[in-house]
């Protein structure tokens, strides 16, 4: 997938280009806001990664300008300003996700891939997610695996729903915390892991083929490994 990286720090940009290429994507790099805006404006990118502080045009203005032009390319904001209010400002300007520096590349990759797979604007929402013999019905709130109905707590349902939305892709613990619980702070302990293992016990334990996998050093992934 095509990724536009707008970042003025040469080392950081070179690292990102290399890492995304290794992950099988085709990244382009712009070193300042104006070049970045021009490239993004031409379109064709699946995701843009925008640093907040850029020469010539700062990241937030760039995003606002793109959005004003009707450009809906998903944007992830990278910022050295990691605080809560900066995040709010970034999202308000039209960013789709926000990641504070320093970050783990696995986190960035997972978020970028999740952004790219957002359904296009106006497309109907899926009401049923299927993965192998697992089925989640968003309308009736029913989860079945094979012929068996699995009873989930509301939060476990949201967790599974989010994982299925991103089936086949890595989902990090912070992404889960943000999307399933709507918390943007550090829970100090492995709270997410325990929730995931509870969910895993319900959907995987009594079945031959596990669907929910732990990705070491990154997070979780739900996939049908058949």
């Amino acid at each position, binding site marked *: 997938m095509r990724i536009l990286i707008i970042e003025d720090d040469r080392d950081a940009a070179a690292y990102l280009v290399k890492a995304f290429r290794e992950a099988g994507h085709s990244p382009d790099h712009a070193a300042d806001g104006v070049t970045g805006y021009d490239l993004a404006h031409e379109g064709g990118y699946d995701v843009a990664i925008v640093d907040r502080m850029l020469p010539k045009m700062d990241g937030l203005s760039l995003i606002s300008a793109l959005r004003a032009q009707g450009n809906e390319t998903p944007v992830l904001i990278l910022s050295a300003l*990691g*605080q*809560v*209010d900066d995040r*709010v*400002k970034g999202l308000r300007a039209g960013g789709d996700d926000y990641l*504070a520096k*320093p970050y*783990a590349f696995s986190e960035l990759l997972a978020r970028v891939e999740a952004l790219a797979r957002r359904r296009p604007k106006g497309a109907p929402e899926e009401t049923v997610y299927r993965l192998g013999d697992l089925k989640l019905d968003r309308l009736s709130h029913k989860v079945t695996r094979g012929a068996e109905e699995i009873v989930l707590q509301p*939060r476990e349902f949201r967790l599974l729903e989010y994982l299925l939305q991103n089936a086949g892709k890595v989902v990090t613990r912070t992404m889960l915390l943000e999307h399933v*619980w709507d*918390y*943007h*702070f*550090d*829970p*100090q*302990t*492995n*709270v997410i892991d*325990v*929730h995931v293992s*509870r969910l895993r016990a319900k959907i995987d334990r009594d079945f031959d083929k596990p669907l929910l996998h732990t990705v070491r*050093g990154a997070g979780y992934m739900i996939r049908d490994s058949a």
Partner: protein
Amino acid sequence: MIALSRLFRATAFKLTLAILALSAIGSGVVLGVVAWQVIKVVDEETAQTIDAEANGLAEQFNQGGIRRLGAAILARSREPGPTIYLLTDAAGQPLAGNIAQLPPGALDNEGFIDTPYALTEGEPHPRRALARVFALPGGFHLLIGHDLGDRARIGGVMIHALAWSLIFLAGVAALGALFVTRRVLKRIDAMNNSARAIMAGDLAQRLPVSGSADELDRLAEGLNEMLGRIADLMSGLKEVSDNIAHDLRTPLTRLRNHAEDALRVDGEAANYRAALERTIEESDGLIRIFDALLLIARAEAGAAQTGGQNFDVGAVVSGLAELYEPVAEERGFALTAQVEPDLTISGNRELIGQAVANLVDNALKYGAAEENGGVNAVSLAARREGTNIVIEVADQGPGVAQSDRERVFDRFVRLEGSRSRPGSGLGLSLAAAASRMHCGRITLADNAPGLRVIVTLPASGAAP
């Protein structure tokens, strides 16, 4: 000389001079007004005297014509006094009177005139008189006047009085200025010396207070309070930087050790990988400490206010209870939450969330009661108390001794017995900073047994 020039530049001295100038103008004006009034009265009286003379002479003229008038004037002219007379014929030649000289044309118009005159030819000092000119039938002119020497004397007395009073005022003012200025300068110098000593590094110095409770004392007291506050902040800052130095040094050293260790041992790829993973782990820990410090600093500065909005604290608390419940269960704790509905406050949801999360995390880490044979239980509560919203996190663990209950809110403070466990010593500091930012407070209480942390926040709409 230097002292003198300092004296002249002093505000008190300048003020005294200004007051002196003002009082000089004031006394000048007063004396001027008095002189003017006195002169007016004198002039009026003079005019009345002239009119009286005129009436008397008019009677003579009516009874015996110009001859009788001439005789009367001759008779009156011989009497000594301030009154002057002059009778002239149609050609302007003097017929009778006691004036030797008048300016030409002085008799042309009837009525009152203020004119110079001389009693004898060639007098050295010109005299002045207020006079009335009458035109008589047959082209005769009569002038009756009154010498103005009295008026001039009154003016002289006034100027004299003014001069003396100014000299006196100047003397008194100069003495006063010297006294006041010296006194003020002395005290200001003392303050200045203290200020210099403080700037030189003696932060314990304070400005001298004379005890007279005057404005200089009030200034000194105000500045002393400020100095006290600055000293507090300075020592706080020093403590924090010492702590940061120590607490960042430790994980940095560990990080460096891991890297060095990996380099020294000629190992396999797996060893390198493990070392790198530990390095990343350590640096993540450092980032967490750093983030927490920044968050505390920002909360203390109130800078995170931009995210201010109304939100339900109860929802945050029950959400956190739900989030932590599996972890609690895993660690053998019973986590319960009692939350009232509609607990809206205005502020930063993330910060309050982080604060409560820190408290819950602490309770799960340090609130274990099993060693004492108790029950592992953490209870969360959120309720309304008057205009406040109260959040409580209570455990039944060993608790915190009364003497430590203030100290634990300081950054990096970790009590004995907790040092061996993972943690940064910033959790409670952040909770305290977040509470303060929301105009609330945080207190520790005995849960008998255990610790009860109480966060009190003003409810939305309540005055802060």
